[in-house]
C-alpha cells in the first residue's frame, strides 16, 4: 500500500508540475497553434489526474471529448479565422491589463489557498475505491436522469445554435 501511495504521489506531483507549466504556456504563448498544443498537454494531464483519483470513465471521456473534439474544434476555429501562423505579437492585451489580470489571479489564488488550507488541512483520502463505469451509468440513469436529459437538450440547442450562427448566409 505504501509503495502505491508513494508512487501515486510522485506521479501526481510530476503530472501536476507538467500541467502547471503547460497551463502557463497556454496563456503566454505567442503562437496560437502552440497555445492549442499546450492546451492538449494540460487536458491530458487532467485525464491522468482523473486516473489517479480512480475515476476511469471520466478520464476516458475527458480524453475523448476534450482532447479529441474540443481541441480539434479549436484548431478548426484557428484555421477558419486565418490566424497568423508563427509568432503573433498581437495575442495579448496591453501590459496594464496583464498586470491587472495577474493581480486578480494572484489574489484569487491567495484567497482560495487560504480557505482550502483552512478547510482540509491534512485530510487524506483513505482507501480509494475504484468506481466502475457501470456504477457511473447507474448513477446517471437513475439518480441524475433529469439533468442528463437536460444536458442532452442543451447539447442539441448548442448544436443548432452553432450551426445557425456560423452559417454562411
Amino acid at each position, binding site marked *: 500500500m505504501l509503495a502505491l501511495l508513494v508512487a501515486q504521489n510522485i506521479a501526481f506531483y510530476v503530472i501536476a508540475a507538467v500541467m502547471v507549466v503547460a497551463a502557463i504556456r497556454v496563456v503566454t504563448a505567442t503562437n496560437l497553434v502552440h497555445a492549442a498544443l499546450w492546451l492538449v498537454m494540460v487536458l491530458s494531464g487532467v485525464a491522468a489526474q482523473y486516473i489517479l483519483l480512480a475515476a476511469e470513465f471520466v478520464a476516458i471521456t475527458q480524453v475523448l471529448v476534450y482532447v479529441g473534439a474540443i481541441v480539434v474544434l479549436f484548431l478548426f476555429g484557428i484555421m477558419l479565422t486565418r490566424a497568423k501562423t508563427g509568432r503573433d505579437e498581437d495575442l495579448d492585451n496591453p501590459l496594464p491589463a496583464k498586470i*491587472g*489580470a495577474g493581480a486578480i489571479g494572484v489574489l484569487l489564488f491567495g484567497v482560495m489557498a487560504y480557505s482550502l488550507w483552512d478547510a482540509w488541512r491534512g485530510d487524506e483520502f483513505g482507501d480509494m475505491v475504484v468506481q466502475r463505469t457501470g456504477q457511473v451509468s447507474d448513477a446517471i440513469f437513475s439518480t441524475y436522469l433529469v439533468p442528463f436529459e437536460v444536458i442532452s437538450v442543451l447539447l442539441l440547442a448548442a448544436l443548432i445554435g452553432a450551426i445557425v450562427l456560423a452559417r454562411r448566409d
Partner: protein
Amino acid sequence: MAASFLLILFFGKRVGTRATAGIGIGAVSICLVLSVGVAAQWIDRVNHPPEGAELVEQTNAAYGETPEDARYEVEAVTTESGETVESQGEGTEGGTEGTDHSEEGAAVTGAAPGESAAALPAAGTEVAAAAEGEGGHGGESESVPPVVNTVTWFTIGGVDFEFGTLVDGLSAMMLITVSIISLLVHIYSTEYLRGDERFTHYYAFLSLFTASMLFYVLGSNTLQMLVGWELVGLCSFALIGHWWEEKKNSDAALKAFLTNRVGDMGLIIGVVITFFAAGASSFNVLHINSYALSGAANATLLLVGSLCLFAGVTSKSGQFPLHTWLPDAMAGPTPVSALIHAATMVVAGVYLIARLYAVFFSGLSIGSSTFHYVAFIGGFTTVMGGLLAFVQTDIKKVLAYSTISQLGYMVMALGVGAWTAGVFHLFTHAFFKACLFLGAGSVSHACHHTFDMREMGGLRKYMPSTHITFAIATLALAGIVPFAGFWSKDEILAGAANGQENAYTIMLVFGLITAFLTAAYMGRAYWMTFWGEYRGHGTPHESPKVMTIPLWILAAAAVVLGFTNFPGSFFGLELPEGWTTRFEHYVEPTFAFPPIEHAEFTPWLAILSTILAVGGLLAAYAYYERNLGPHGLTRHSRLASGGYTFLENKYYLDTLYSDIIAADTKGPLARAAYWFNQNVLDGIIDGSAAVARKVSGFVYRDVDQLIVDGAVNGSGFVSEGSGQLLRRIQTGKVQQYAAILFSGVVVLAGVLVFVV
C-alpha cells in the same frame, strides 16, 4: 304727487312744456280736491264725533285693501294704549269749505283713482290699527280722536317702525294750504318760466316738493316727519339752485341746504330723545304726545328733546341764528320763493312744534313760566327780521326778512301757549305772503327781471292788478283790520299778554315793536315800488292773466280768511256760536293735547296794534313818498351809519358763520388731514412697499436663486456627473467586464472567508 314727480321727471322732456305743466297742475288739483274732501270729512267728524258704541261696533272692510279701493268702512276697537284709529272713507264729493278755492274746470272729481283721501306715499297700503278713544279735555267739543292709519313696516326689538297717516284738523288745514298754494304756484310758473330750458325739471321738483310736504304733514310718526322734512330740504336745494349757471345761485342753494343740515342734527337727536322720553316704545306722534302729557315721561328728557327739536325748527323756519339762508334763497325763481319760503316749507318747523305740542308744553313748562327759550327766540327773530328788512333794496329780500319776522311771530305764539293763534297765523300768512311774492314776481316780470326797488317806481299806473293785490296783501301783513293779518296777529299778541298762567311780557313788547316795523318796511317797499316815477328801463307792462289771476285769488283769501276765526266777542259784537272761532274749533286738536288757555279778544291790545300798524304805514309814506323826516341821517351821524352798516351786513352773522366758524374748522382740519395723509398714511404705505421690496429681493436672491435653484441645479449636476463617471465603466469590452467580475469575486470571497 309722487307719481306726478316721477312722470314729469321721466317723460317731461318728451311731452313738452305744456303737457308737463298740465301733469303737474292736474296732480295738484287732484290733491287739492282730496284735501278739501279730507277737511270736509274732518269737520263732519268734529261735529259728530263717533260714540263709544259706534267706535266698537263697526268693522273695517279695509284690512289689507289697496288704496285703489274707493271706500272702506269705519272701525275702531278700544284697547288700552293710546291711539284711536279709523280708516276713513274716500271723499267722493268735493265738500266745500271756501268755494273760492275750487279751481279751474279741470278739477277732477273725487272718484279719482289711485289716491286716497290723504295723498299717500307711493308705497303705502292701509291697515287699520286699533287704539282707544280717550276722553277729551278743553274746548267746547268732546275729544275727537284723529284718524290714524298705519302699516307696520318692520319691527326690531319690540319697536314698531310704522308708516302711515294721521289726519286731524291741523293736517287737514295744512293739506288745504299746501295744495292751494302749490296749485296757484304751478299755474303761475307756466308763465313765469316760459322758455326756460329746464322747465320740466322745475315742474318735476315742484311736484316732488308738494309730494314731500304732504307726506310730511300727514306723517303719523316722527320718523316719517323726518323723512318729509329732509325731502323738502332737498327740493328746496334743487329749486333754489334752478339757475345754477350763476355761481351765486348754486351757492345760495348750498347755503340753504347746509344751514338746514346744521339744524337737522338737532332734529334727529330730538326725534330720538322723544322716542326715549315716550318710554322707548314708539315713534308715533299721538303716543308721544299722550305720554308727554301723562306725566310719566322724564321731564328732563322732554326739555332736552324739545330744545333739540327746536334746533331743527330754528334752521328750517328761519329763526335766529340759523336764518341766514332764507334771504339768499331768494336766488331761486319767484314762484319757488312763494311756495317754499313763504307758505309751506318754512312753516314745516312751525308745524313740527304744533304737532308735537305736548312735548314742548310739558318740556318747556309753557303753561307756568314767563320766559323760555322758544318764545324768546321767536320774539327776538321777529324784531331782528323786521330791522333787517329796512335796509334791503331787493324787493324779494324785503319779503324774505318779512317772512323771517312772521315766522318769529308764529314760533313766539306757540312758545307762549297761544297754539291756535300761531297756527292761524301760519294759515293766513301763507296766503298773503304768497300773494306778495307772486306780486313781486309779476313786478319783476314787467321790469325786465330786476328785483331792485331802486329801479322800480310808479308801477301802479302800468300794473293795476298787481298793484291792488299787492296793496291788499300788504295791509293784511301789516295787520290792518279787517284783513286777515289783523285777526291772526292780534290773537298772538293777546296770547302773549294774557299768557297761560303768567303773562309773557317781553314777548308782548317784541310783538308790538314788530307790528310797527312790519307796517313800516312793507310800506317802504310798497311806496318805492308802486308810487313815484318809474326809474328803470323801458316801459313796464301788466303781466298776463295766468299770473294775475292767482294774485287775485290769494288777495281775496287774504281778505276773507281772517273771519274764519272771528273771536267770541268783538267790541261787544256777539255773534252766534256757530259763527265764531271756527278755525279753532276745527283745527285745534282735542286729543293728546295739553290744556291751554285761550286768550279772549283784548280790545285795548287790538286798538294799540292797529294804531302801531297805521302809524308805521304813515311813517313810511312820509319818509319815502313825501321825503319828510330825517333823510340823509346815515351820512351825517356816525352812529346811524354804523347801525346801517351793521344791519346791511346782516349783523355780520354770515361772516361769523362762513369765515370764522367754517373756515377755522375746515382750515386746520384740512391741513391736519393732509399732513396725516402725506406723512403717516403715505409713510406707512411707502414703508411697507420698501419692506416688501427688500424682503422680496432677499427672497429672490438668497433663497430662490441660491438655495432652491442651487438644490435643484445641484441634484441635476450630481446625477449628470455621476452618470458621466459611471459611463466610463461601460467600455463595451467584455474582458473588462470579466475583469471586474473576477475582482468582485475576489473581494466577495475574501469577505466571506476572512470576515464572516
